[in-house]
């Protein structure tokens, strides 16, 4: 079984973001970029499926500018066999990303497609579900455990208040949650080897998908600053303030 794993280049999760002075977007100039943390978990899961003999090949795919090849190289260093880069400088919304991935799925025919549940830039949590809808597949979102059994996959999902397990017919789409696994670090020899692994570059036009969006971002602002900084001297004062000033406890 082939596993397709989608990765996204995003701002590093440790970086404090700045909104541009003209409020058009977040300023990404000279900012450290990295693979989206949930995508790292997706790559790790795909590689583990291969190590367990469940997957025969792991193909990494990304959609983004030329620089996004860095993240594909990371995926290759972590154990993906080859990669597909859908290259575009345009901003790609979830629905368009799902349409592009659907075309890649049509070409590659993976048994499983694994994505992060959301990217930490737009925080949409949409692409996996949309891909599953477009491909007519079942979806195992927010996965914390994945077990392939014959022509089905059993997915334990992190839901509000607990866990839910579903069984999906293959091929299927899975999106990863935090507890699924702990991603490894790439070793230097693997990073060197990854440089020789193939990356197939395609453009949205080649896939017959127009990069368009019905959403327009009118402005991006910093959230209201909190007026913090008040100190209390004792537990008594704290309890009193919470009761009588903030009125959040009875």
């Amino acid at each position, binding site marked *: 079984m082939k596993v397709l794993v989608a990765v996204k280049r995003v701002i590093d*999760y*440790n970086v*404090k*973001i700045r*909104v541009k002075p003209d409020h058009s977007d*977040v300023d990404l100039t000279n900012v450290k970029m990295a693979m989206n943390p949930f995508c790292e978990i997706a790559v790790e899961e795909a590689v583990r499926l291969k190590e367990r003999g469940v997957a025969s090949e792991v193909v990494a795919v990304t959609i983004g500018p030329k620089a996004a090849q860095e993240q594909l190289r990371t995926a290759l260093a972590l154990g993906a066999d080859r990669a597909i880069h859908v290259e575009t400088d345009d901003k790609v919304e*979830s*629905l368009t990303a*799902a349409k592009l991935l659907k075309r890649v799925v049509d070409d590659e025919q993976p048994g499983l497609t694994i994505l992060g549940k959301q990217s*930490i*830039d737009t*925080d*949409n*949590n*949409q692409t996996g*579900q*949309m891909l*599953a*809808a*477009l491909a007519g597949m079942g*979806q195992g*979102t927010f996965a914390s455990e994945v077990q392939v059994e014959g022509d089905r996959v059993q997915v334990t999902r*992190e*839901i*509000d*208040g*607990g*866990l*839910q*397990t*579903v*069984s*999906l*017919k293959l091929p*299927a789409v899975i999106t990863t949650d*935090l*507890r699924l696994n702990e991603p490894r670090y790439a070793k230097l020899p693997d990073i060197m080897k990854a440089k020789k692994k193939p990356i197939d570059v395609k453009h949205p036009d080649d896939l017959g998908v127009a990069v368009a*969006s*019905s*959403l*327009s*971002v*009118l402005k991006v*602002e*910093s*959230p209201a600053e*909190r007026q*913090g*900084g*008040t*100190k*209390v001297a004792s*537990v008594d004062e*704290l*309890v009193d*303030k*919470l009761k009588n000033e*903030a009125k*959040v*406890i009875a």
Partner: protein
Amino acid sequence: MSILVIAEHHNGQLAGSTAHVVAAAQAIGGDIDILVAGENVSGVAESAAKLAGVGKIKVADDSVYAHQLAEPTAELIAGLADDYSHVLAAASTQGKNVMPRVAALKDVAALSEVIGVESPDTFLRPIYAGNAIATVQSSDALKVLTVRTTAFDAVEATGSAGVEAIDATVDNTLSQFVDEELASSDRPELGSARVVVSGGRGMGNGENFKLLDGIADKLGAAIGASRAAVDAGFVPNDMQVGQTGKIVAPELYIAVGISGAIQHLAGMKDAKVIVAINKDEEAPIFQVADYGLVGDLFEVLPELESKL
């Protein structure tokens, strides 16, 4: 305009989040219907009918909708959506599972975690874990939204909407429910708790997290943790509050032994009231805390528990 709100329910009970989603629908304006999809959900429909400002409750009661799996539920909603300008659900794991699937089936964009309504086609939503707020306009005829429930005050239960069964069954060959394991804890769920008490690296070890139990019991609070505490192995990852964990917006957030790294602040700074307890008076958490108490948490916590 006409708006379809997807009711959230568990074990035959209407979830409180639905009243908040109806409030978001009222902010958009127009006729509001509620869809209750599930199996044996007449009680849920009765509760939904009491929500103020709702016109009609549509009930799809069929075994295929048991456990509200995404595949049949999305197909049902997509089939009803042509009668509406907006479809709204809570930004819960349920809403986030189903609504993007609905949007793709209708070939429209989806908007996640909406926290404000500027106009019927323009919405506010957090990006970068709430470190920026985007104002987004949709040109789609159908708007598919999930709503962050803490951003909208619940409507009252003063209504009396009509309840109508709809005969809309679909086939589901893609997915099957296997089982569900709901946390046995009496504590509320982290993402929707009214009060959250979180511990950080300052807790020292996992055993010390028990010091938070008594306070959480008295306040009916959920217990969370910073990434530092998770990375140090004190507590499991599902307790993590932050950019790579859960985003919470409770009425009261008590941060204990948490320094206040950006990644943690991103997950809790929308709390209405923040309390910080830390022995380091220079800790960045104090800059966002409404009430900061500098002190040794091993002395402060037992005292706080006894005085609540």
